[in-house]
């Protein structure tokens, strides 16, 4: 198990390295930059600016300095377009926000998705089953960027129940809509997955055996059927986390939460290389970490995988 974890972690390093290098060269080779403006700067000023940000050195030196600073000082460098702010500042300010509603969104996905799937499977072809099928199709068709405006239209503009944006230090009315808008479609997928896999498990011979020996339905469900049914759900959580991370970019922009997604898009507009690169690395690390975590939990729970690892 430990061996497996270490091996997986080691595999992340080259991937991350390749990613950094690709992004780094993409940025440096692309035409235009943060200092190209309609009125060109005088050469002397330009020279000073380039020197200040270390852009006058050869590319490989720049790359090496960049990686060295991240590794040894955890320093992503200064922002090119926002004077006297560093990428670290932006991350320190925005990341907790994104993390907060992201966490609540994940809780929402699991706490609502799994029970809904269980109910739909137990009451197969009942009202709840149809509700869930409807929800699954609905969420496929209304992705978060269509759902979010509709939610704001209903809950803010029509009924005035919830604020339509902002963060306000993370008070709960401000967290609800970002978390729900981010999670709804994955909640529906989790519910559908739970339903499908529970239905399959419930028709397995060992469940029939459990019923035949007279166990109460409750025990059959909770002790015997549910655990193996949740395995596909756990492995699905890996991709879900990845989608939620990218989805959070949209949520940050739409709800003006002040999360890192907003900075990321702003940086793309102003070609603020260091911010884009820093945040892209952060998003990727987050993706790797969450996927790894899900895989490890999966390996830990599934006896088949666990014994295969020894």
């Amino acid at each position, binding site marked *: 198990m430990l061996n497996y974890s270490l091996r997986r972690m080691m595999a992340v390093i080259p*991937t991350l390295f*390749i*990613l950094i290098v690709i*992004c780094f060269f*993409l*940025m440096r080779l*692309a035409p235009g930059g943060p200092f190209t403006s309609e009125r060109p700067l005088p050469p002397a000023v330009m020279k000073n600016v380039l020197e200040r940000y270390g852009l006058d050195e050869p590319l490989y030196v720049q790359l090496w300095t960049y990686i060295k600073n991240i590794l040894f000082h955890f320093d992503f460098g200064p922002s090119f377009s926002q004077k006297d702010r560093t990428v670290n500042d932006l991350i320190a300010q925005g990341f907790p926000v994104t993390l907060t509603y992201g966490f609540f969104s994940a809780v929402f996905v699991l706490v609502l998705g799994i029970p809904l799937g269980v109910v739909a499977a137990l009451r197969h072809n009942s009202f709840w089953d149809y509700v869930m099928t409807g929800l699954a*199709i609905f969420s*496929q*068709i*209304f*992705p978060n*960027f*269509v759902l*979010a*405006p*509709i939610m*704001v*239209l209903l809950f803010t*503009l029509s009924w005035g129940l919830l604020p*339509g944006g902002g963060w306000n230090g993370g008070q709960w009315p401000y967290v609800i809509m970002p978390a729900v808008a981010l999670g709804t479609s994955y909640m529906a997928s989790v519910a559908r997955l739970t339903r499908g896999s529970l239905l399959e498990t419930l028709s397995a011979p060992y469940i029939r055996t459990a019923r035949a020996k007279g166990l109460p339905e409750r025990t059959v469900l909770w002790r015997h059927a549910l655990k193996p049914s949740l395995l596909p759900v756990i492995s699905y959580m890996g991709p879900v986390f*990845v989608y939620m*991370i*990218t*989805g959070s*970019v*949209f949520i940050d*922009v*739409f709800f003006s939460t002040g999360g890192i997604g907003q900075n*990321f*898009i702003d*940086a*793309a*507009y102003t*070609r603020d290389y260091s911010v*884009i690169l820093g*945040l*892209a690395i952060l*998003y*990727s690390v987050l*993706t*790797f970490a969450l*996927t790894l975590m899900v895989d490890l939990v999966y390996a830990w729970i599934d006896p088949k995988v666990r014994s295969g690892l020894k």
Partner: protein
Amino acid sequence: MRTRKIMNSPAYAEAAAEEMINSRSFWVDARMRFFKNKMAVVSLTMLFLLALFAAFGQVFAQWSYEEIDWSLLGKIKEQGGPNWENGHYFGVDELGRDLYARVVQGSRVSLLVGFLAGILAVCIGSTMGAIAGYYGGRTDQIIMGAFNITLSIPYIIFFVVWQAFFGRSLEQMILVMVIINWTAGLLIVRGQVQTLKNKEFIDAARMLGMSDAKIIFKHILPNMLWVIVIYMSISIPEMIMYESLVSFLGVGIQEPNTSWGALISEGAKTMTFGTLWQLGYPAAFFVIAQVSLYYIGDGLRDALDPKER
């Protein structure tokens, strides 16, 4: 004499008819199953109408999608709504441009990007999958390694990085979408090829001296075409969604050109002023396209997947 008698009997005719039914080819069979599915047929019609709208809708527009109707500026909220008399069937947008013409243009871009990128990505993905599955060994390892790396990169992040550095033209957008999604369908095609390549008829073809390329395209491809078709039907709505999401974020298609996502984004920004048609029309078109593609995909899966039969 006796055989003719047998052949003339009703029982024989019945048996022959059954024989003919059973020997229908796979694709004819699938087409029949698909057209029996009402939702799928309705959706196909809807999609066809949408395509017609995108292709020829401009004919009915009285304004171009870039033109500003100066007479409405400053009173868009009161008079900019859908109106048949001044030729703005869907109203005007925030800047006084005809929303009907813009929705037509947006449909063009979204459908074009979605279909082109979706089909190209699946073609590349399944070719790579076929190569990995057929040759195995080192080739397989390299392709699967690249596959895993690609999967772990957050799509939108890479998309935004790319758009930020290479400008925001339509071609760039299709290109980057294909690059990010080159893995579409790879895994399933690889698995399919791995099972197919050990079948006797492939051995026979190899013994007859056919080249690898010929075996792949002539004997393996037709047997897994259904997988590719199903995967395309999943991939196209996904691409439309990515394009819309990125355009919504403002780093996709560039003004004055537009797409569903960009239009929805503009509508969402102005809905606080009560100009709901600016959100409603593009969102409705987007949703109709997604619903149709969803049910078409569903119908295709039912018709083609052997497990569903």
